[in-house]
C-alpha cells in the first residue's frame, strides 16, 4: 500500500520534473522566438536608419561649396571692343538688334580667360611661379561666362575693378573638402602640385571660402562646368510630369472606380476589368516604359525625352493605385447614406456624385498624393523613353526635352568625377526624399484634418 503510494508519488514527482524540464525548454524556445521577432524589427528599423544616416552623411557636405572671391579688373588692354551700340543711333529696332548681336559676338570672341587669370594672379601671393593652364584649373570653367555676362549687362565696367564671386572647380572643391585623399601621389591627383599649394594659400588668406551651394537649386545640369551643375531643369521636368499625372490619373481613376463600384453590372466584362486592374498594379514599371517607347514614341510619334510621354507613362502606372484606393473608399461609405439619398428621390447618379463621392474625398486625396509620391521616384520607365539624355535647359512646355529628378540622380551617379559627384548625388537624393516626405506629410495631415471634419 505504502509501496504503491510512494511509487505513484515518485512517478508524479518524476512527471513533474519532466514537465518542469519541458516547460523550461518550452519557455526558452518561447524567449528565443520572441527575441528573433524583436531582432527582425530592430533589423528592419536599423536598415531605415542606416540608409538615412548614410545618405545624409554623404549628402550634407555637398550643400556647401567653395567660392572664390576675386577682384576682377576689366582691363581695356584685353577687352578690345568698341562701345556697345546705343538704341538712339538706329532708326529701327531690327537694325539695333542686329548691331547689338554683332557687338555681343565680338565680346564673346575676346579672351576672357585672361581676365580670369589676371584676377587669380592678383589674389595669389606675389611672385608665384605657376603657368596659366594650371592656374585656370582652380576656378570653374564657367567663371569667364559669368564675368562676360557682367560686362555685357553693363559695358561701363570697362577699365573698372569689381568684386566677383565665382565657384571653385569640382577638382578644387574635392581638394579643399578632402573628398580626395590628400596623401596620394602626384600621378593620382586631379590637380597639379602648384595648384594644390595655391589653393591652400588662398583658403588661408580668405580668397576661397565655403558657402551654401545655391547652384544646386538654381542651375541646370552642366557637363563643361560640373561644379555649377544643379537640379533646376530636372525639378521642372518632374513638375511637368506630375502635373500631367494629376490632370489625367485622378479624373480617369476616380471615374473608373466609381463605375466599377457603383454602376457596373456584374458581368464577365467587369470581372475582366477588375482582374486586369489588379494585375496592372503588379506589372513591373519597366514594362510601362516599353509601352511608352513602342506606343507613344514609335507609333504615335510623340517627341522623345519629353515630359508629355513621361507623364502619360506614369499616369498609366499610377491609375491602378488610384482606382483600387478609390474603390476601397467607396466600399467604406455607409449604406444608410445611400439609402437616405435614394429615399429622398435622388437618382443613382445624383446619389453617387452628390453624396457618396464627397465623403470619400479625404481617402481619394491621400491615395492621389501617395500615388504621385510613388510616380515621383520612378526611374526605369523614364530611361526607356529617352529621358536620360543630357538636357541643359529648363523645359518651358511638356513637349520640350527634359529630364527628371530620379533620372538626374542616375546620371550624376554615373559621372566620372566620382569624388565630386558622389556627394552631389547624395544631395540630390536628399532633395528627392525631402519632396517625397513633404508629400507624405501633407497626405497624412490632410487626411487627419478632413476626416475630423467629416
Amino acid at each position, binding site marked *: 500500500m505504502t509501496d504503491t503510494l510512494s511509487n505513484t508519488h515518485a512517478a508524479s514527482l518524476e512527471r513533474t520534473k519532466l514537465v518542469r524540464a519541458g516547460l523550461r525548454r518550452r519557455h526558452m524556445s518561447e524567449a528565443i522566438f520572441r527575441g528573433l521577432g524583436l531582432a527582425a524589427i530592430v533589423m528592419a528599423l536599423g536598415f531605415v536608419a542606416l540608409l538615412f544616416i548614410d545618405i545624409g552623411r554623404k549628402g550634407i557636405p555637398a550643400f556647401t561649396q567653395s567660392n572664390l572671391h576675386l577682384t576682377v579688373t576689366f582691363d581695356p588692354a584685353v577687352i578690345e571692343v568698341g562701345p556697345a551700340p546705343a538704341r538712339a543711333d538706329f532708326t529701327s529696332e531690327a537694325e539695333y538688334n542686329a548691331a547689338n548681336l554683332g557687338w555681343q559676338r565680338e565680346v564673346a570672341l575676346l579672351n576672357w580667360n585672361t581676365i580670369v587669370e589676371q584676377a587669380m594672379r592678383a589674389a595669389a601671393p606675389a611672385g608665384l611661379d605657376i603657368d596659366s593652364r594650371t592656374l585656370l584649373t582652380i576656378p570653374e570653367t564657367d567663371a569667364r561666362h559669368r564675368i562676360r555676362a557682367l560686362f555685357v549687362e553693363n559695358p561701363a565696367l570697362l577699365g573698372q575693378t569689381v568684386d566677383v564671386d565665382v565657384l571653385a572647380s569640382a577638382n578644387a572643391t574635392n581638394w579643399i573638402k578632402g573628398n580626395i585623399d590628400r596623401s596620394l601621389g602626384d600621378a593620382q591627383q586631379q590637380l597639379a602640385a602648384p595648384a594644390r599649394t595655391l589653393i591652400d594659400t588662398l583658403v588661408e588668406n580668405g580668397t576661397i571660402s565655403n558657402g551654401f551651394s545655391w547652384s544646386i537649386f538654381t542651375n541646370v545640369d552642366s557637363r563643361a562646368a560640373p561644379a555649377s551643375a544643379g537640379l533646376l531643369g530636372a525639378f521642372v521636368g518632374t513638375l511637368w510630369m506630375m502635373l500631367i499625372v494629376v490632370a489625367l490619373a485622378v479624373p480617369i*481613376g476616380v471615374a473608373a472606380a466609381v463605375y466599377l463600384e457603383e454602376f457596373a453590372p456584374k458581368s464577365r466584362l467587369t470581372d475582366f*476589368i477588375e482582374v486586369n486592374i489588379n*494585375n496592372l498594379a503588379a506589372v*513591373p514599371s519597366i514594362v510601362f516604359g*516599353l509601352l511608352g517607347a513602342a506606343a507613344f514614341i514609335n507609333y504615335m510619334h510623340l517627341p522623345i525625352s519629353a515630359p508629355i510621354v513621361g507623364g502619360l507613362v506614369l499616369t498609366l502606372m499610377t491609375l491602378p493605385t488610384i482606382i483600387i484606393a478609390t474603390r476601397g473608399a467607396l466600399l467604406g461609405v455607409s449604406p444608410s447614406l445611400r439609402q437616405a439619398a435614394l429615399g429622398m428621390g435622388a437618382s443613382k447618379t445624383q446619389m453617387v456624385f452628390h453624396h457618396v463621392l464627397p465623403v470619400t474625398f479625404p481617402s481619394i486625396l491621400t491615395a492621389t498624393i501617395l500615388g504621385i509620391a510613388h510616380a515621383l521616384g520612378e526611374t*526605369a520607365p523614364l530611361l526607356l523613353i529617352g529621358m536620360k539624355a543630357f538636357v541643359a535647359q529648363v523645359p518651358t512646355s511638356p513637349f520640350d526635352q527634359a529630364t527628371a529628378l530620379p533620372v538626374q540622380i542616375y546620371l550624376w551617379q554615373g559621372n566620372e568625377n566620382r569624388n565630386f559627384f558622389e556627394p552631389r548625388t547624395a544631395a540630390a537624393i536628399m532633395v528627392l526624399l525631402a519632396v517625397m516626405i513633404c508629400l507624405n506629410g501633407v497626405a497624412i495631415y490632410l487626411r487627419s484634418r478632413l476626416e475630423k471634419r467629416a
Partner: protein
Amino acid sequence: MNALIVAALLLVLLGVSYQSGWSRSRNLVTADGVKVHSRPQYHGSYVAIWAMLPALAILALWAWFGGDLTHSYTVSQIPQDILLGLDQTGLNGTITRIDALASGYGVTGEIQPFEQSAGDALRSFQMLTFVGVLLVAAVAGGAALIYARSRVTARLRARNAVERVINIALLACSAVAILTTVGIVASLVTEAYKFFTFINPLDFFFGTVWNPNNAGTAGNWGSYGLLPLLTGTLMITVIAMLVAVPVGLMAAIYLSQYAHPRLRAVAKPMIEILAGIPTIVFGFFALVTVGPFLRDLGNLVGLSINATSALTAGVVMGIMIIPFVSSLSDDILNQVPRTLRDGAYGLGATKSETIRNVLLPAALPGIVGAFLLAVSRAIGETMIVVLAAGNSPVLRGNPFEPVATITVSIVNQLTGDTDFAGPQSLVGFALGLTLFVITLCLNVVALYIVRRFREQYE
C-alpha cells in the same frame, strides 16, 4: 496659338449652350407653372452635350486625318520633275524645309524658288483649312445647339439622357485599364515578333551566350541568349528573398502577436517608410555603401566578393522588399480567426507554439501568395540591379561575381534613341515580353491563392 483658339471656341460653345438650355428651362417653369421633368441644370447640360459632341467629333476627325491631308497637299506642290528625282529621305527633307518656310522659321542653305512658292502655298492652305475646320465645327455645334434647344420641353427626360452620357463616360474611363493591358501586350508582341524575324526563338530562349553586337549588320547581329540573364535574375531574386522573408515574416509575427500597441503604432509606419523610398536611392546605397562593405567583409574572411555583384544587389533588394512581405503577412495573420488561437492557448500551448503550430499553418496559403507577389516584384525591379549588379551577362553560379538581369539588359539595349530597326533594340521587347509573362503568371497565381485564402475564413 492654334490650340488656344480651339480651346476658346470650345469653351464659348460650352458656355453658350449650357446657358441657353438652362434659361429655356427656367422660362418653361415661369411660363405657366407646369411641372418640368428635369431641373434646369440638366437641360443646360443636355443642350451642352448636344452642342459639344459634333464640334468635338469634327475637330477629332481633323486631328486624325489633317496631318495626312496636309502632307499630300505639300507633295502636290512640289513640281513633278523634282519630285521624280527625290528618294524617300530626300522627299522628307524637302517637306521639312517647306514646313519650316511655311511656319516662318526660315531654313539653312539656299532657298530654291519652288520651295519658296510651295511654302507660301502651304501657309495659305494651312490658314484656310484651319479657319474652315473651325467654322465647320462652330456651325455644326451651333446647329446642334438650336436643335437640342428646340427639344427642351417640360416633358423632356433630360436628366436620364445626361446620366446615360455620364454612364458611358465612366465606362470609357474604366476601359482605359483594359486599353493599357491591350497596349502593353500588343506593343510587346508585335515588336518581339519583329525581333524573332531576325533571331530564331530557340536561340533566344535556350541560348547560353549574351553578346549583342550593337554595331552589327545583317548576318552579324551577335548572340542573344536569354539564359545568362535569367540565371542572374533568379540568383538575385533568391538572395533577396533569403533576406526579406525571414526578416519580414518575423517582423510581421512580432508586430501582430507580441508587440505592445504603442510599439506597433510606431514601428509599422517606420518599416513602411522603406517601401516609399525610390528604388534609385536603394541602388545608390547599394553601389556606394553596401557593395564596398560586403567586399571588405569578404576580404576579412578570405572570400573574394565583388563590390558590384549578385550578392550586393540581392541584399539591398531584400531590404527593399521587407515592408512588402511584412505588411502582406501582417494582414494575412490578422485574418486567421481568433478562435483557432484561443483553442491552442486553452490546450496550454505557449505563444510561440501557437504561432508555429496553429497560426502559421492556417495562414500558410496566404503567406505563400504574399511571397509570390514579392518574388514578382524582385524579378521586375530595375534600378538597384542596374547600379549594383555589375552588368556582366555571363552564365555562372557564383553570387559573389557581377551578373546581369533581364531588366538591366532592357535598359542597356533600349536607351531611347533607337529606331527599332535591328535586333539590338528590338530584343528589349522580347525580354520585356518574357518578363511580363513571368510576372503575370506569378501575380495571377498569387492573387488567386490570396483570394482563396480570404474566402476560406470569411
